[in-house]
């Protein structure tokens, strides 16, 4: 085979391969999505995180503003500590409420932010004081049963 034809084919092959990798990274994967370039980290303590997983989205008003970077157990407060990475473009007041919500009935869990009224903004390493835990179905049912039972007692 001619040398130049060989080079042409191999060149085409390598270009197609690298192109396929780029397509996978940009179109299929989330390389083009939220970048790690400009972020800051905040953390929050929750009584119960339910099924929250690392890399779950942090949303405010339905818009993704960051991701959960890590989840650990705080052994002094006996609470779950959730570290979140937020995009620098989004600033939140210091009295923002973080709650763990579920998208849809069986969907993934995410952290929802509701902005407060404080004039100071959250900065790197700050803690969110106001949190709301995930809804645990068992607790909900037992609460319902207790309240039903209490109603029954009242009627007697």
């Amino acid at each position, binding site marked *: 085979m001619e040398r130049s034809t060989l080079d042409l084919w*191999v060149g085409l092959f390598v270009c*197609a391969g690298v192109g396929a990798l780029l397509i996978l990274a940009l179109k299929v994967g*989330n390389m083009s999505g939220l970048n790690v370039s400009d972020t800051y980290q905040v953390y929050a303590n929750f009584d119960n995180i339910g099924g929250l997983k690392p890399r779950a989205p942090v949303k405010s008003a339905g818009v993704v503003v960051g991701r959960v970077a890590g989840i650990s157990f705080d052994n002094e407060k006996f609470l779950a500590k959730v570290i979140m990475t937020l995009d620098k473009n989004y600033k939140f007041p210091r009295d923002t409420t973080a709650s763990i919500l579920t998208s849809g009935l069986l969907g993934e869990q995410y952290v929802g932010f509701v902005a407060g009224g404080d004039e100071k903004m959250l900065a790197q390493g700050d803690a969110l004081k106001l949190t709301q835990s995930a809804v645990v179905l068992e607790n909900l049912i037992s609460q319902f049963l207790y309240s039903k039972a209490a109603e029954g007692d009242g009627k007697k």
Partner: protein
Amino acid sequence: MMSKQSILSVRSIGHSAIEAVLRLGYATRFIALTLLHSGTSFRRPRLIIRELYFTGALSLIIILVSGLFVGMVLGLQGYQTLQTYGSESALGVLVALSLVRELGPVVSALLFASRAGSAMTAEIGLMKATEQLSAMEMMAVDPIARVVAPRFWAGIISMPLLAAMFSAMGVFGGYLVGVVLIGVDEGSFWSQMQSAVDFREDILNGVIKSCVFGLAVTWIALFEGYDAPPTAEGVSGATTRTVVTSSLAILGLDFLLTSFMFRGV
């Protein structure tokens, strides 16, 4: 009488075990020699380019076509199942994750083993049978540096590229069936896919997998060819063994790698 037979059968087990260990040792020495003599093929990249043409560029058609069809079948089957849960919009996630994590690396490695690996074994085995390798040695050309090492590196380079092309083509096939043919919403197809597929966790792990498969397939193919008995029967047996052994190696390695990479959080 009975005891003599049982002794014989135990002996044959021992014989085959020793044989297997010996061959493993030969194979390890073979790959060590290949790595040691790889310098020549990097100083003369033309050797690698030639082999890239034969192992990579000529495998393009089969990889692209089978990737397209695997993706289309995934689209159809995935839609059938997801539809019963009313979550057709997750079709993109299903197609992309199963291709990038598993099917892309594994199926393209199986195709690579049967298309390029068998050819490598047959070529080297025939070179040995017709004493071309000995002739090279007589001319003070090291056959490992001249014949084996370029093929080895070409295999390792082309395997991840082929797997990436397979996955990209498969995603396109899934898109064709899911969005164009069935009519899943295009926006949710892509956006759910993009939010679920992680570059480092999924795509990079797929690339690592395909590199490992490339190494395993080319190692097995080259060693079987180099070790083949120099007869017509020997070469044909070695070619068969290449396909069987490397397919089993791919599937076994895939389980190992998957259990390390995707253990779930």
